[in-house]
């Protein structure tokens, strides 16, 4: 009765972990990133001029939805102290005689202070303040040109000359969810699959090591292969469901073709299977193995070339990572497929890399796993022999 309950619990738990956990986290993280922009960044202004021009600038900053102007301060030290204590993330200093200097065409200088510790906030703040100040500058320039007897049409032409049209391809809004989702999905699939797979592999290893006098190693055996195949199918279904939910609920683009996605995920799961066999070769205790596997998520994500692209990595680092962990071959083409509708030829190098990874590591890990079973059997038989001799 208890054994039956335990087996049912294990089966249900596996399905929950492999199939539903990635979907749950897709929905959760999608919700985290559901606001596309970082807005209402706390901001303060030091107005040393207190003129109509400076008040106009304060109004412009206050009306911008990117910033939340919490008020004005009276000294620069006060401003810096507020930034230091994280009460605000940036500040503007309007210098004395600002209004007079504008009228005298002396190009007065505004000072924008930004907290650079969190680059996401800092970069957004930089973009917002630049936009406001440039817009104000163009307005003043226009009046200078028109005041200098240039007709308004020509003045506008001069000011717009050499301007540029920026087009942000694939994700015009530059949302954080669209940027990060393929990487997160890769980690979710990897971790859930690996955690359940390692349990099955350890069970099998411990079972096979039970009989020390058995002649054949018996790995890989049919029941285990069936179990792995079941997990692989569940994980693949989960992957597609995650993509579907991300698309329907949070508008994640699905521009690539399904077959390419299917090949990509299956190859990746085979790679992870190889790594799972390798890891379980070293562990006997299921909990220890699960603990080790859980440690892999952050390091493998940060070294996959997804957040820190390959061209920016230190020399030889990318080649080492590509040869020891397969996430690189999955998350980068996945982003290309979903966001850019990358062609099969674009992702082919990744598929070849992934297949080669599987060929090499699957062979090595199976050999190691088999060796480990032999070692466990030998230890067991030695212990039995000692017992017999003692008896």
């Amino acid at each position, binding site marked *: 009765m208890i054994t039956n309950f335990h087996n049912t619990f294990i089966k249900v*738990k596996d399905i929950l972990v492999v199939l539903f*956990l990635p979907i749950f986290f897709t929905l959760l*993280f999608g*919700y*985290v990133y559901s*606001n596309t922009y970082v807005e209402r960044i706390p901001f303060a202004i030091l107005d040393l001029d207190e003129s109509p021009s400076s008040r106009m600038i304060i109004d412009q900053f206050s009306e911008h939805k990117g910033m939340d102007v919490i008020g004005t301060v009276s000294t620069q030290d006060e401003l*810096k102290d507020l930034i*230091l204590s*994280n009460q605000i993330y940036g500040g503007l200093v309007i210098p004395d005689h600002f209004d007079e200097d*504008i009228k005298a065409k002396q*190009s007065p200088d505004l000072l*924008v202070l930004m907290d*650079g*510790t969190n*680059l*996401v906030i*800092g970069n957004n703040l*930089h973009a917002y*303040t630049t936009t406001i*100040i440039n817009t*104000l*500058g163009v307005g*003043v320039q226009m009046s200078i040109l028109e005041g*200098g007897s*240039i007709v308004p049409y020509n003045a506008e*032409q001069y000011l717009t*000359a*050499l*301007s*540029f049209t*920026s*087009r*942000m*391809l694939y994700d015009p809004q530059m949302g*954080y969810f669209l940027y990060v989702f393929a990487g997160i999905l890769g980690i979710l699939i990897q*971790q859930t699959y690996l955690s359940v797979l390692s*349990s099955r592999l350890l069970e099998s290893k411990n079972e096979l090591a039970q009989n020390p006098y058995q002649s054949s190693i018996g790995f890989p055996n049919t029941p285990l292969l069936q179990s792995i195949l079941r997990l692989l199918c569940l994980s693949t279904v989960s992957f597609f469901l995650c993509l579907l939910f991300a698309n329907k609920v949070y508008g994640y683009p699905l521009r690539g073709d399904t077959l390419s996605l299917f090949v990509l995920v299956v190859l990746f799961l085979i790679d992870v299977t190889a790594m799972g066999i390798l890891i379980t070769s070293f562990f*006997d205790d*299921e*909990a220890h193995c*699960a*603990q080790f596997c*859980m*440690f892999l*998520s*952050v390091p493998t994500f*940060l*070294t996959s070339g997804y957040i*820190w692209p390959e*061209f*920016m*990595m230190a020399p030889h680092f990318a080649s080492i990572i590509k040869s020891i962990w397969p996430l690189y071959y999955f998350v980068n083409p996945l982003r*290309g497929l979903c*966001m*850019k509708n*990358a*062609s099969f030829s*674009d992702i082919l190098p990744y598929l070849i890399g992934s297949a080669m990874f599987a060929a090499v590591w699957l062979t090595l890990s199976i050999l190691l796993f088999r060796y480990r079973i032999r*070692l466990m059997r030998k*230890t067991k038989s030695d212990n039995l022999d000692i017992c017999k001799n003692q008896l």
Partner: protein
Amino acid sequence: MISLFHTVAERLYQFKLRHTKAIMNLLIFIIIPTITGIAFGYEMGYNRIESVPIMIADYDHSEFSRTLSDYIADSEILTIKEYASSNEQVKDALDSGEVMAALIIPEQFNKDLLSGKGPKLEVLYDGAQMTVASAAKSALSEILLTVKAGYMKNIYQGKLSVVESESMKQIQPIGATYRVLFNPTKNYRNFLLPGMLAALMQVGFGIIGLSRSKEERCGFSKSISKIIGWGLAGAGSMTICLGIQYLFFNLPYRGSLLAGALMTCFFAIAMTAFGFIMGRIVPDRVFATQLTCVLILPTSILSGYTFPVMAMPEPLQKLSILWPLTYYGDGIRSLCMKNIGLSYFIPHLTALGTIIAVELLFMACIVLVERKYYDYQLS
């Protein structure tokens, strides 16, 4: 040779069987943090985003377009990968990820510019790579604004007869100095690594807490001593992890040492206590491990370390006060980059202290319930 290999493997296996607990502790507290710290430090050796590959499609072939290309070639942030001969080539390169930005200079651009027709340059960015695209956009905007300033200078001098010394002031009627405090070079490694290492280490703290709780059923005082003892060991491990970055990869540490030490200890104890509680309430060890990690790992995102809490929906903003990493990640990054004293961290320490107090209270309840249950069973 093969027999030697067998002997070594066998000895190692025997050693592992005898010292499994010590090996796991060593793995969690020393080996994983050290290797990960070195790997991250080495990986992000360039510190900031630079050498972003860009493609130029120059249909103008004028003196101006060549000057513009030279400006881009001189930029540290951008690297000209290739000159394209058609827009299709540009699109293919962007699609395949070969380049991450492209500049298209239209035909007769220079001629139109001189005749005052206001021609436009087209700049394309790979929006799928947000951080790289932002860096490329900012670098390219800077270059184009510099070139534009030169052009406007000629207009002011030629059309309005403004003298050279005055023309620059009129080109930029409102100047702006942008000062990025504490991280002036926008060093990405310093921004990312302290909290990411903490996100990794907190899994270890949780696991250690869980493993210790499974060793024996102990009373409240013994549980506290275990939590604090192993929490302090975890703080030592976290210090090693950050120390590697400081010693070998130029991670600054400008804040108060006492604040750093207290924050690290509080954080490690809070996470160890969480693991300990999970170990006490979930009977199955493997399931307890998986559940603990599943609850801990997402906090690397939910704590707002990279994507700030202020940008999250309101319910998640409220939930974020529950995660120790919310206070520690942000706090340790501030300590690394800002010359800041202990007094600034009183709110962080209070929050972490409150979390620990609540956890210990919960622990006391568990011990009480367990005791009552056993008493009931005995009776």
